[in-house]
């Protein structure tokens, strides 16, 4: 299970909407308590691909985010990105580039902008499993 507070969710949503028509992306940092991940901070990064169907995190911003997590005593939990025109599920490209089976991969679908959908996945090879996400 992974837990995120509503204000962090709203930061992600606002950023993703502001980046349309392109995909938006970022990192999530937090702590792990037993089997559960608690998101403590979300990072809004630049999609250097500037594409509506692909993203790559800006490595300089990624490095800065990792250092910020270290200074705050939290750890990288995974990343998030938006699918502007498609459902919240990992594409083959998402699976191909998900090398860390312990990470949480969050996907925000903006297919219906009036009803955005954020889901979290664990990805191992070609297998993607939905991870329970609690936003409160």
């Amino acid at each position: 299970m992974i837990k995120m507070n509503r204000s962090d969710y709203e930061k992600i949503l606002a950023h993703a909407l502001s980046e349309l028509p392109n995909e938006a992306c970022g990192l999530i940092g937090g702590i792990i308590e037993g089997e559960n991940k608690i998101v403590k901070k979300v990072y809004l990064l630049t999609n250097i691909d500037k594409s509506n169907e692909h993203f790559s995190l800006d490595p300089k911003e990624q490095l800065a985010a990792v250092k910020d997590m270290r200074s705050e005593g939290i750890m990288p939990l995974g990343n998030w990105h938006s699918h502007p025109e498609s459902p919240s599920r990992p594409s083959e490209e998402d699976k191909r580039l998900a090398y860390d089976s312990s990470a949480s991969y969050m996907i925000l679908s903006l297919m219906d902008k009036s009803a955005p959908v954020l889901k979290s996945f664990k990805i191992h090879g070609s297998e993607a499993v939905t991870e329970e996400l609690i936003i409160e």
Partner: protein
Amino acid sequence: MTITVSGNKKEKNDGLTLAQLVIDENVETPQYVTASVNEEFVSSSDFEKTVLKDGDNIEFLYFMGGGSYGIY
């Protein structure tokens, strides 16, 4: 020499290359890794010829990307 790897100080032999450090540190899936030395990014093709020196600050970063390409 003393270098800092991902925020942790480590003692290493002089002459260590970035490529050797990748092995020493058991960096997983190195094909997806880029590194920075003192905030300067180093391409993986230059790992072999990058010799580290005392005081260097090294970070390993995994490429993160993906996207909705191919989904419907």
